[in-house]
């Protein structure tokens, strides 16, 4: 068992500064394809620290922090800036707008929610027909998106326009051990990458990709992976914790991950079969340093690693996620401890990476 204090670089600690930044990130409106508000925050944070910063054709922010030694391992980390949300598609007059979904969302959670439109955060609501006016049996049907409208109020003309994106209006807060907000998938990951940049690992060439359009097909990660051409890639995301008790009291066997059990290491999702060498490295790091971790249940879902690992001649890849309940709904619940442990495990694993990890065959 290795003492954490024996690592060359102290593991980054999450404090008030990190939480304030997370709040800014969570509250920003940055829907897939329109990530500007988060991109601006990221650029502001990375410019003083990075060796190279570019914004590419799709809007990814690509940051390089050079190693201090030659022939360093080129390691790419990816976290996505975008969140699922809405796009206003048609003006129905009087402040009512038709809208389309951007990214996968359970349509049943839309109705009766406050939302914010655009960078100016214009408030609106997705209303619902009053119970009093409903026909018998109507309540059993999910209202299709085509029938819903975003309502910004009758005097709103000129404040918003068709094409603007919108998100739920949830404001970030910390409640006891929990972090509560929208878009923590993947603002938690974005914040983690920024912390890594603040605490770089000198023997690694760090290639940080703040990606776009993950929620609609891993599109930013695909071109970022090609551009960086790394030797190893780690996607840093948030994954659902479906660990509520079963209604009938039987054991919940489809929990995916559990809140409070630490960062989730991916063995397999629908897009990637993680490189076993990297799975082992992460797990051994956790064991050696007593950092709690769990294995995400294999199957389903996906991360930016899906698009990165098959670029060019192939990139050994793995994903690590902060568990969160109720993903892709107005409110996600994560645990501060899980976030801290994810950051610790990631940073420690990076510190312990050596080129010979790729010497053995996959």
């Amino acid at each position, binding site marked *: 068992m290795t003492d954490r204090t024996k690592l060359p670089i102290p593991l980054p600690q999450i404090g008030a500064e990190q939480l304030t930044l997370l709040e800014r990130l969570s509250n920003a409106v940055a829907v897939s394809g329109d990530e500007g508000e988060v991109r601006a925050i990221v650029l502001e944070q990375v410019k003083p620290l990075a060796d190279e910063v570019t914004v590419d054709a799709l809007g990814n922010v690509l940051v390089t922090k050079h190693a201090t030694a030659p022939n360093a391992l080129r390691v790419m980390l990816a976290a996505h800036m975008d969140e699922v949300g809405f796009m206003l598609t048609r003006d129905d007059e009087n402040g009512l707008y038709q809208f389309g979904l951007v990214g996968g969302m359970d349509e049943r959670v839309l109705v009766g929610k406050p939302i914010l439109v655009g960078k100016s955060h214009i408030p609106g609501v997705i209303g619902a027909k009053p119970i009093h006016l409903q026909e018998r049996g109507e309540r059993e049907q999910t209202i299709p998106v085509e029938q819903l409208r975003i309502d910004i109020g009758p005097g709103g003309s000129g404040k918003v326009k068709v094409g603007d994106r919108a998100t739920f209006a949830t404001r970030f807060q910390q409640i006891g051990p929990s972090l509560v907000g929208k878009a923590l998938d993947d603002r938690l990951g974005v914040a983690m990458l920024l912390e890594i940049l603040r605490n770089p690992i000198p023997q690694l060439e760090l290639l940080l990709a703040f990606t776009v359009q993950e929620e609609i097909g891993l599109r930013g990660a695909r071109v970022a992976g090609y551009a960086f051409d790394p030797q190893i890639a780690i996607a840093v995301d948030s994954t659902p914790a479906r660990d509520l008790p079963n209604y009938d009291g039987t*054991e919940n*066997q*489809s929990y995916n991950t559990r809140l409070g059990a630490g960062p989730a290491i991916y*063995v*397999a999702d629908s*897009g990637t*079969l993680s*490189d*076993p060498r990297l*799975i082992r490295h992460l797990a051994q790091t956790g064991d050696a340093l007593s950092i709690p971790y769990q*294995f995400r*249940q*294999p*199957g*389903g879902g996906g991360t930016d690693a899906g698009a990165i*690992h*098959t*670029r*060019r*001649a*192939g*990139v*050994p890849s793995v994903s690590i996620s902060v568990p969160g309940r109720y993903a892709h709904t107005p409110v996600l619940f994560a645990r501060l401890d899980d976030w801290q442990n994810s950051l610790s495990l990631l940073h420690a694993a990076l510190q312990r990476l050596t080129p010979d990890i*790729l010497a053995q*065959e*996959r």
Partner: protein
Amino acid sequence: MKELIRKLVEAVGPSGYEGAVRDLVRSEISDSVGELRVDAMGNLIARKGQRQNGGLRIMLSAHMDEIGVMATHIDENGFVRFTTIGGVHPRTCFGGRVQFVNGTRGLIGGERTDAPDKIHSFEQLFIDVGASSRETCPVKVGDIAAFDRPMIDLGDRLVSKAMDDRIACAVLIETLRAIKKSPHELFFVFSTQEEVGLRGATTAAYAIDPDLGISVDVTLSGDTPKGVKMEVALGKGPAIKVRDGGMLADPRVVRLMVASAEKAGLPYQLEVLEGGTTDARAIQMARAGVPSGCVSIPCRYVHSPSEMVDYRDVQQSVQLLTALLSGPIALE
């Protein structure tokens, strides 16, 4: 060749964990090729020959991986819940046997269903490895298994799990051995993770950057009672793929294959497969594009633990590829 096929199909190598198959292939071909390497995705890439007299760089691909199951949860009594890796059908599962990469063997059991003739869903199935508790179970979350069935030799017909695509691995190995002289630079790729999205072939094709791509894979056949309607049948020769669910073969490559078959006096069939695709699709899309096609081995009961091929089709596939790759090629 039957012994080679047996060794290949009986090896345990589900997508992402093809090591055992790779070791086997490597031991079979290492003295027949100029250069052998394993890339980041675990593909085994063997190079044979050099380009001369207008020869081409040709990539051939057969995938080493098979469909399988991966443990998602071990309950307190040691029963293993699982997810599928690749296109596994629920109806091939109940009562089946599996072998994990770590050697553990087991069978697939299921919960009681509403009616005895109803097929279990995946959520209603579990693997029983004979353990009695979570702590003593030799399987943990993330462990992966393949279906477990020995090959049977029915003479002209061979039956096994993983004919898809180990039979093509055998074809490539035999072709590699049979080619004595060729004007082309040949890359024999034993690819990984085809069943989950052609992932190995995608990166191998990028790295090799070939002038021509040919995958070898199984295809369905239309010769079983009230089965899929398809002209392809066992015993009528290798199938030359015109299209499948994910790829339109380059017509020049199709013409080339037909001409080679006719010149060599080999039987062949033309194949249109509705649904399913092969490594050729991934090769075709590499970089600025690669003219590609596929030689298919007709196969019954694909993605079941008992896939059947015709041994003569297999031998003729070797002959077809050998003839095609030994002579000059002009794509027109």
